[in-house]
């Protein structure tokens, strides 16, 4: 009969109205600045650089390989290699970036840099309050601001961080085993040219 | 005479609207001004105590006839009509002359009529209650009422028939042509 659907709709919206005062499921919005929903793990805004341990100057995973700089579609990353090499977490000698800048007014948040990075160094962040009163200097994020600790990375991407930590732990263990073997070998006359500089 | 100010206002709106409706160039403006004149007349009726007629005037003239005129103007692209050369200066002069002549002759006879001068209106005594109008319509005026109903129905049907668009495909699709086409096709096949 004409009108039965209309009445059904009225009952539903009427319940929405009345129960919104008692039932939280009927009032699903969140008052943004005061309350915030936690972002999903796969949320991505702008990239950041992960460093291990506590000192960003030492533990920065980035090796200034410049793959991300080349792959970045809008070209918002600028990297200048340092002149000296430093040992990385497995003890291998690597460059570090002297300059690492991302122009976040150009960055489109595609996440390609994070995908191509072979060192698990550049990852996508969850911060989204990026507005500033000035559009040149504050939109150009430098290495110091980009560098964030692995703990932070663990807190925003727990699943991915666990995998990476496990993988890196394995690599490190393997490298240590190798060094130990090399050290053992050093005790014997054979030498291993690869692991010349054990930590 | 402060009592007369509403009347003068309504009369000014009516006459100003009428003059504008008859002399403006843009047809839509003309129609809108005519609607203003009709509404002003409604105000005069209200002042004269004929509430029902005033309401009917606004309902019929402003609500229906002005809208009809506006629709007709839009349907005939009348809003953007080109002015021909003949439609300019002499017209206005002749129009003014005609207005003056007709108005003078009518006003002269009105002003010279002694019976009209003598009588003045007494305000509160006379009204036209809707109930009395209805009773009149159902008793003394029942035949005119029926006739008007018939006339309105006829006018509605006539307006629909006149204004309906004749579709060219409808004629193609009509029965005899289809039969003929079928016959032609059969002739072609054989």
């Amino acid at each position, binding site marked *: 009969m004409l009108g039965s659907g209309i009445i059904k709709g009225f009952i539903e919206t009427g319940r929405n109205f009345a129960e919104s005062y008692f039932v939280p499921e009927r009032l699903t919005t969140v008052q943004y600045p005061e309350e915030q929903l936690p972002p999903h793990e796969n949320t991505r805004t702008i990239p950041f650089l992960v460093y291990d341990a506590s000192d960003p100057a030492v533990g920065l995973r980035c090796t200034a390989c410049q793959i991300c700089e080349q792959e970045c579609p809008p070209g918002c990353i600028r990297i200048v290699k340092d002149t000296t090499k430093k040992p990385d977490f497995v003890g291998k000698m690597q460059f570090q970036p002297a300059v690492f800048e991302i122009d976040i007014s150009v960055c489109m948040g595609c996440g390609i840099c994070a995908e191509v990075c072979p060192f698990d160094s550049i990852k996508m962040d969850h911060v989204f309050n990026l507005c500033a009163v000035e559009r040149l200097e504050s939109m150009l994020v430098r290495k110091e601001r980009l560098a964030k600790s692995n703990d932070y990375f663990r807190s925003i991407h727990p699943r991915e961080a666990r995998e990476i930590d496990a993988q890196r732990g394995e690599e490190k263990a393997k490298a240590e085993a190798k060094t130990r073997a090399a050290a053992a070998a050093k005790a014997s006359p054979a030498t291993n040219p690869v692991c010349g500089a054990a930590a | 005479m402060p*009592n007369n100010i509403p*009347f003068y206002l309504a009369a000014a709106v*009516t*006459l100003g609207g*009428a*003059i504008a*409706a*008859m002399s403006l160039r843009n047809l839509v403006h*003309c*129609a809108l001004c*005519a609607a203003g*004149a*009709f509404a002003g007349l409604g105000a*005069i009726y209200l002042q*004269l105590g*004929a509430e029902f*007629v005033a309401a*009917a005037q606004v309902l*019929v*003239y402003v609500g229906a006839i002005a809208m*009809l*005129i506006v629709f*007709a103007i839009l*349907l*005939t692209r*009348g809003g953007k*009509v080109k002015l*021909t050369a003949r439609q300019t200066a002499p017209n206005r002069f002749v*129009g*003014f002359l*005609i*207005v003056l002549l*007709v*108005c003078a002759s*009518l*006003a002269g006879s*009105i*002003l010279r*009529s002694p019976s*009209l*001068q003598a*009588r*003045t*209106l007494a305000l509160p*005594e*006379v009204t*036209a209650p809707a109930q*009395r*109008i209805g009773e*009149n319509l159902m008793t003394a*005026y029942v035949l005119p009422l029926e006739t*008007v109903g018939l*006339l*309105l129905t006829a*006018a509605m049907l*006539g*307006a*629909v028939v*006149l*204004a309906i668009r004749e579709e060219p495909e409808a004629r193609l699709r009509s029965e005899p042509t289809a039969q003929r086409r079928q016959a032609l096709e059969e002739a072609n096949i054989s």
Partner: protein
Amino acid sequence: MSPPSQYLIVSAMLFSVGFAGAALRRNAILVLIGIELMLNAANLNFIAFWRCGAHPEALTGVMFTIFSLAIAAAEAAVGLALIIAVYRHRRTIQLDELESLKG
């Protein structure tokens, strides 16, 4: 309250304006508006005479005006339908261009 002649003079002026428009304007719709104005002038006369006549309780003028309104509505509907029909055939509603019946 003003004497009836005031209303009659307003009505006369309205009638003459409508008449001049209907006689001189060349657009069919404007002619129709002119005719409506003349009808309205007549209605105003009816109401004014009813108001100051000898037997206002008979409502004659009011009844006449009501019927006049109904007829004006019918007239406008048919008139405008005619104008639209003419426009369909001739692509114009300027009356001086519709001269095919001129001898």
